[in-house]
């Protein structure tokens, strides 16, 4: 294919896509209208299952299978990163030099770290009650641990972060989600069905399997982000090509 033919094909495809998108836009409901057929049904279903946060009910109950797909995407991409960023034969590790951090910054990092971890766990635990959930809280917990790199140095972070056990925990959390889904198949009616008692509305244990699936996602995301950042940090800080001093 020459350059001109390629451009022609792309122009035809692009025009078709643009025409379809414009046609679809004209059929959309108006911005900010008061007719929400999906919203009404979703809210009714989530209230029937005693889940205060409708989004959590959609993510972990009504569309829990979609969340399984999203979790697998994160798992696979972190796996790909681990394979791509591994230490190759012509690379070696150099010990990072300690960084001189100004005292107020160091104190701030060490003070905020536990607060941030606690906030992340709070966001995970209240996923079925208020905005938030496993993904958001997991990212916060993982980011919080890296305050040790920012406020101290990389060796301080490495001491509390055995990457191997985080990889194992990542896989365990991903399997926990699958096992909970299979339990729904055994005890209830379908894969990922909400088979536990729904509990009292607006309490931590309400929503049946929603808090459990939420916790599994929280653990999976936190461990996945830690492993992801560990590989990036190794490459940026420690691993060097042979010949570089």
């Amino acid at each position, binding site marked *: 294919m020459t350059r001109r033919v390629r451009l022609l094909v792309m122009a035809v495809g692009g025009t078709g896509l643009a025409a379809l998108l414009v046609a679809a836009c004209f059929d959309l409901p108006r911005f900010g209208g008061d007719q929400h057929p999906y919203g009404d049904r979703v809210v009714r279903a989530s209230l029937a299952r005693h889940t205060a946060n409708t989004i959590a009910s959609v993510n972990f109950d009504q569309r829990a299978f979609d969340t399984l797909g999203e979790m697998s995407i994160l798992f696979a991409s972190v796996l790909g990163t681990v394979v791509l960023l591994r230490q190759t034969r012509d690379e070696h590790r150099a010990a990072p030099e300690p960084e001189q951090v100004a005292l107020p910054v160091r104190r701030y990092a060490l003070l905020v770290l536990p607060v941030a971890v606690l906030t992340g766990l709070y966001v995970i635990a209240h996923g079925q009650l208020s*905005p938030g*959930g496993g993904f*958001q809280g997991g990212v916060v917990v993982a980011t919080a641990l890296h305050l040790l790199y920012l406020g101290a140095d990389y060796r301080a972070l490495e001491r509390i972060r055995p990457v191997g056990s985080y990889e194992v925990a990542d896989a365990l959390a991903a399997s926990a989600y699958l096992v909970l889904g299979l339990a729904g198949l055994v005890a209830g009616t379908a894969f990922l069905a909400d088979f536990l008692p729904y509990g009292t509305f607006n309490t931590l244990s309400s929503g049946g399997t929603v808090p459990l699936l939420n916790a599994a996602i929280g653990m999976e995301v936190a461990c996945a982000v830690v492993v992801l*950042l560990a590989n*990036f940090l190794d*490459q940026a800080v420690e691993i060097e090509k042979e010949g*570089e001093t």
Partner: protein
Amino acid sequence: MDDPLIVVALLLVAGSATAAVAVRDPARQALVLAVLGTVLAVLFTVLQAPDVALSQLAVGSALTPLLIMLSVRKVRRPKRREETER
């Protein structure tokens, strides 16, 4: 669309997103991207989608800048070595 708050949030997103594309240096682009993340979170809040806004805040305010800046550091490092050796 008559709510001025939504208009302001949309304009901020359009402005910072255009700037993120227009800036060429990756490190400066990461700075604009961090601001874009914050502004997007505000837009999601204004549109009453706090769960999405929380996701955007969690990912956009610290994690994405850290990943980008670590990559920039890795790519730039050999070049700096050569300069100091000369």
